[in-house]
């Protein structure tokens, strides 16, 4: 094996860099969501200009987050992409099934409170994390 082949930027280094980018943009997006949710009431007293700026920031950061996430997935190797695909497929399936089920429960008065989208997102995130964990364990 040629030495220069051994000293190319490693897969691990590339994944680490992309993960850090993804983490940074995720944090920025979460901050923009918090600002958009709480800012109008707690900081700028429903000023429309400030609210519009917050909306634009949130959408722009959301768009960037999608692009960075796409880059992250593109930077993975085929096994890692396979693990991600399985995890996302399971999360999406669980999200759909549990989401509809949760909504129906309220319609038929089995639960008395209104279903919240945040509950569904938490469930999908947990399922995704567990799926990634077991996917990595399966191929380790």
């Amino acid at each position: 094996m040629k030495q220069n082949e051994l000293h190319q930027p490693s897969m691990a280094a590339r994944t680490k860099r992309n993960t850090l980018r993804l983490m940074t943009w995720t944090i920025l997006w979460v901050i923009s969501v918090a600002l958009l949710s709480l800012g109008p009431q707690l900081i700028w007293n429903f000023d429309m200009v400030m609210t519009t700026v917050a909306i634009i920031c949130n959408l722009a950061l959301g768009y960037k987050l999608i692009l960075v996430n796409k880059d992250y997935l593109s930077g993975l190797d085929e096994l890692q992409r396979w693990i991600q695909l399985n995890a996302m497929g399971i999360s999406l399936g669980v999200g759909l099934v549990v989401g509809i089920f949760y909504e129906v429960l309220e319609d038929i008065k089995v639960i008395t409170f209104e279903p919240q989208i945040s509950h569904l997102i938490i469930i999908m995130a947990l399922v995704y994390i567990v799926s990634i964990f077991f996917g990595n364990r399966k191929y380790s």
Partner: protein
Amino acid sequence: MKNRLKVLRAERDWTQADLAAALDVSRQTVNAIEKGKFDPSLPLAFKVGRLFELAIEEIFEYE
């Protein structure tokens, strides 16, 4: 699929990390292929063949 990746790697005294770097994949992927847990794509199989200067069928065997 069975494969001779581990043997070929050992003959050259390479670690899994060396092979992973040469193939631009993670060490986890090399390990999974060696253990037969994961079948590589055709482009990756060609890359492996080129690296070891062998035909794909000399490395991988369909069961």
